[in-house]
């Protein structure tokens, strides 16, 4: 009877798969409950909203807190899916009895939750702060509350999606396709929305989509309730669109502190994929990093730029009279003191200070590579007056490109390559430990060296920190880059000048000559700076003006430039090994094995002050693992009967009732490993592509959107076509095996392929990204539906259409994905992306083995 209501393609799929009609479809089913286009459409919209909300949360948390919470968002989203799977496993009967009206209600509620969750999490009682997580235990609970608040919309959405999956288990391929296609579209939609709406406005705008998806499915059943819910949700969402919640930044972020200054006000703000840009003015904002103590002039008042609440630079123009020559009394003046620089390349230095300084020092051509288009727009338009239109100066050429992309595309030679300052004043406490910083890798410095004229220098300044980390790792990266370029004596090519708080490195392709060495000495004497590295420098000269309590700093510097470098890497309490493109985490210094030593030196409470970001990532992994395990264990607790149990074989008597069967451990484990392997493999691949694409596209949000969209769309296609594979046996071996082989090939060829094409226009790169991902993504969409088929067929006769194992498999897959998202970040930091890829292959290997047993 039901087949009469189904579209033709569905009947074909069912026939092709030789799947029995689900038992509850024997009862009369209203037409709206069949797998119709509006249901698929609704599913697609909801899936799009879920991904868009995920990306919006990443933007919001990067704004109010720091970047490392991006991984938490991915985990929380996946946790919602895992928990929904568990809920379906436990309450399947209760839920499915209400299928006529519950999914649309869940969708409407998901929209409501999306609109409200962020606002509630920002209330004074629930707001958490990264810095206080270890200092004030209440904030750990607040973080948990945030977890739960963000979890709700994902859970409600996933439950609705899951119910549809269960109800139409026989057409899982089609549904999975709609789900993944929608998700892919959602990530692209999020990119568009992020350009238009500020982070606080995004959730309510995105909430419209689940609302629509729910309203599309309203039928006669409980129409009054659903209409009332939809009306209420519409009202709340509309209110939130008109009156978005005020996002409260961590009070320890630079912007928060600056806004506390007298008469501080935000002059203008713009949003974009690189985050929120805000320009602040106050008569108390002055900026002169590491200013010489011999400077007696006025430090000028500047306007300040903040990106996602973090310091983004001071707006300063050389042409203004009140700016005098303050920058000439900082380390930034070192390269100009060495010799005149005609051709200058400023990487990410659009805000003006160094450009003006270079112009004043006689530069004839200055090229600026700045990836942030919104920032460029502000500097060229709203702040053009402040900058005296510096970016439109005839000698200045601005390229809106990621610096690495620019370096690979450009062939010009420069007398000076300027980099942004490394680190933060006083250290960043590891808050950027998980942030990919491709500008400070060995490969990046090698590319910069190749752009130098024979007398040209790379100039980079760094805040001195305590314990010493940033200057040492920066020098290590510079030295290793030079050696990789065939320069065996880096000590003759690197000069370093230290003020009371900063150190500036100047790196040459050719050895420093006597004239340059003398001029550096003169510069130091005039500024009250000390040469930390300079051919022929004496121990006394190194501390003439600025004494160090720990003179081992100089020993470390010398050792990094000697063949003994590896020994220092091995023995130092912090990770000094320079980052490469495979592990681009410059700011990750934590070494787990040093923790007991550091705890002994500084005490338990001080420990998080070193490397809070990475510790948070580890804690997130721990928390999430416990919760994810609970979500897998829970169904086992409650499902003492059902298809899996019966499939386990062997009747037993329980509570005097016949027909119960024990769940055989072997089968449990096989299903667990099969879907765990997929969960781990898929997430690891996704995270690798996101991280790889950050360099490729130059923006984390673009990278996430491109990787997620391509992967999901291709997986959707693979999932859809998996139902047409003629031989399940071959597919179960061939598909995971093929994915493993592809992953191993990717581990070798992906990096060179991306490097070879990085300089192409963005549109072509987007197309190439899709091409890179397509074969892998296509096959990666298959194992999940194939597994369902495989286990359903194995237990045929015991199952009634496969609706029982869907939530179970989905729950396992979701929960392992949750753990994998957090784990992948840690594996990437510890071992590099190549290993993440290899582990992904291993995950699919587990899937292959678990699905292989007794095939045929």
């Amino acid at each position, binding site marked *: 009877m039901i087949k009469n209501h189904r579209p033709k393609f569905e009947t074909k799929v069912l026939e092709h798969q030789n799947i029995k009609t689900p038992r509850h479809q024997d009862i009369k089913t209203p037409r709206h409950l069949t797998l119709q286009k509006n249901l698929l459409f609704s599913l697609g919209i909801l899936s799009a909203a879920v991904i868009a909300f995920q990306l919006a949360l990443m933007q919001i948390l990067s704004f109010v807190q720091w970047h490392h919470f991006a991984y938490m968002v991915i985990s929380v989203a996946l946790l919602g899916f895992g928990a929904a799977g568990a809920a379906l496993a436990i309450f399947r009967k209760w839920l499915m009895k209400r299928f006529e009206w519950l999914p649309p209600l869940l969708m409407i509620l998901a929209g409501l939750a999306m609109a409200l969750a962020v606002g509630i999490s920002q209330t004074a009682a629930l707001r958490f702060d990264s810095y206080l997580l270890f200092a004030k235990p209440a904030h750990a609970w607040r973080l948990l509350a945030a977890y739960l608040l963000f979890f709700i919309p994902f859970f409600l959405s996933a439950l609705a999606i899951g119910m549809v999956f269960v109800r139409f288990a026989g057409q899982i391929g089609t549904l999975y396709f709609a789900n993944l296609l929608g998700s892919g579209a959602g990530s692209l939609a999020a990119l568009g929305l992020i350009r238009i709406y500020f982070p606080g406005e995004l959730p309510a705008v995105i909430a419209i989509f689940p609302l629509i998806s729910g309203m599309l499915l309203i039928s006669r059943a409980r129409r009054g309730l659903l209409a009332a819910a939809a009306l209420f949700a519409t009202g709340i969402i509309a209110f939130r669109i008109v009156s978005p919640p005020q996002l409260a930044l961590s009070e320890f972020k630079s912007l928060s502190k600056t806004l506390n200054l007298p008469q501080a006000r935000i002059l203008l703000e713009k949003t974009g994929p690189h985050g929120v840009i805000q320009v602040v003015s106050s008569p108390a904002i002055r900026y002169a990093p590491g200013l010489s103590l011999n400077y007696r002039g006025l430090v000028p008042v500047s306007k300040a730029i903040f990106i996602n609440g973090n310091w983004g630079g001071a707006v300063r123009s050389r042409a203004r009279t009140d700016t005098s020559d303050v920058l000439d009394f900082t380390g930034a003046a070192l390269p100009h003191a060495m010799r005149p620089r005609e051709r200058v390349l400023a990487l990410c230095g659009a805000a003006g200070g160094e450009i003006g300084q270079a112009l004043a020092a006689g530069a004839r051509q200055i090229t600026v590579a700045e990836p942030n288009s919104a920032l460029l727009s502000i500097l060229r338009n709203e702040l053009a007056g402040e900058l005296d239109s510096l970016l439109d100066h005839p000698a200045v050429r601005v390229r809106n490109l990621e610096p690495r992309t620019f370096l690979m595309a450009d062939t010009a030679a420069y007398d000076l390559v300027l980099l942004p300052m490394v680190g933060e004043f006083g250290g960043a406490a590891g808050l950027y430990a998980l942030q990919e910083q491709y500008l400070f890798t060995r490969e990046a410095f090698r590319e910069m060296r190749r752009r130098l004229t024979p007398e040209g220098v790379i100039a980079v300044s760094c805040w001195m920190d*305590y314990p010493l980390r940033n200057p040492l790792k920066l020098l290590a990266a510079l030295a290793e880059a030079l050696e990789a370029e065939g320069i065996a004596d880096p000590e003759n090519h690197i000069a370093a000048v230290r003020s009371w708080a900063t150190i500036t490195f100047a790196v040459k392709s050719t050895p420093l000559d006597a004239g340059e060495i003398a001029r550096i000495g003169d510069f130091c004497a005039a500024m009250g700076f000390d040469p930390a590295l300079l051919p022929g420098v004496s121990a006394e000269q190194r501390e003439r003006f600025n004494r160090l309590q720990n003179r081992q700093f100089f020993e470390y510097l010398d050792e990094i430039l000697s063949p003994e470098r590896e020994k220092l890497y091995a023995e130092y309490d912090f990770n000094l090994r320079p980052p490469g493109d495979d592990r681009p985490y410059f700011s990750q210094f934590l070494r787990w094995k040093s923790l007991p030593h550091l705890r002994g030196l500084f005490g338990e409470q001080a420990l998080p002050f070193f490397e809070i970001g990475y510790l948070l990532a580890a804690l997130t992994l721990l928390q999430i693992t416990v919760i994810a395990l609970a979500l897998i264990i829970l169904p086992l607790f409650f499902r003492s009967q059902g298809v899996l149990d019966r499939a386990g074989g062997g009747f037993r008597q329980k509570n005097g009732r016949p027909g119960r069967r024990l769940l055989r451990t072997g089968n449990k484990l096989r299903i667990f490993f099969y879907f765990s392997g997929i969960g781990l493999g898929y997430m690891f691949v996704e995270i690798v592509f996101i991280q790889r694409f950050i360099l490729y596209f130059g923006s984390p949000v673009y990278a996430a959107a491109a990787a997620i969209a391509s992967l999901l769309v291709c997986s959707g296609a693979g999932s859809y076509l998996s139902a047409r594979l003629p031989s399940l046996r071959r597919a179960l071996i061939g598909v995971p095996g093929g994915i493993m082989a592809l992953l191993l090939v990717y581990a070798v060829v992906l990096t060179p392929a991306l490097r070879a094409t990085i300089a192409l226009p963005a549109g072509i790169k987007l197309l190439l990204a899709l091409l890179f991902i397509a074969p892998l993504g296509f096959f990666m969409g298959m194992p999940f539906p194939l597994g369902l088929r495989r286990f359903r067929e194995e237990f045929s006769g015991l199952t009634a259409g496969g609706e029982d194992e869907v939530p179970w498999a989905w729950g396992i897959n979701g929960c392992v994905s949750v753990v994998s998202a957090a784990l992948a970040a840690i594996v990437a930091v510890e071992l590099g992306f190549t290993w993440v890829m290899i582990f992904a292959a291993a995950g699919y290997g587990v899937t292959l083995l678990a699905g292989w047993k007794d095939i045929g």
Partner: protein
Amino acid sequence: MVNRITRFIIFLIVFSCTGDPGKGQDAAAKTDNDPYQKQRYRMVAQQIESRGVSEGAVLNALRAVKRHLFVPAGEVENAYQDSPLPIGYGQTISQPYIVAYMTEVIEPKPHHKVLEIGTGSGYQAAVLAEIVDSVFTIEILPELGNSAAERLKNLGYENTEVRVADGYFGWEERAPFDAIVVTAAAEFVPPPLIEQLKDGGKMVIPIGAPFRTQMLMLVEKKGGKVTTASLFPVRFVPFRRE
């Protein structure tokens, strides 16, 4: 079913049984006259003396100033912990040891005139006021500056004067100073402060914000020449193990 429910309840209990480790306070240390005196003495002994601060006047000042009166109401019970505490507006009251160390480093004498940049809640000013002749302190945030002025006045620190202003310019009318304590870290040392420091005077500045590892910098002015010395709060820490 009962069995299932029991298991679920056990499960919930297991997953909810994590306590709040930060609540334990030593109520026994309180006495009727000065409920926090014991905690304060213990703070000096365990957090300050044990780390090498030995100047008697500094230790006495730390024992005398009631730190719990300089923290927000919600932080009173944490006032004598070995950590900085938030006082609002993104500002903090420094860790007791940092206050002691910065005070010792400038070698304060009873006849000294000291300038402080960054009054905060007024705790550092009060500690200095216990030792030196006069303390001039500048706070840029009016809310903090005004409440600190009132607090110091109420506590009888007549030798302190609070000004709400931008610390960049120092306090020219009261210059020169024997010592300057900058409690608010800055990316540069304001040139007017160097001008207002007496020849032979000392200035101490923290490098690094609270809740991060802090280093201190001592600026000395002798014969017109300005030199600095970095000082680690933990005297010598080997980060390398062989």
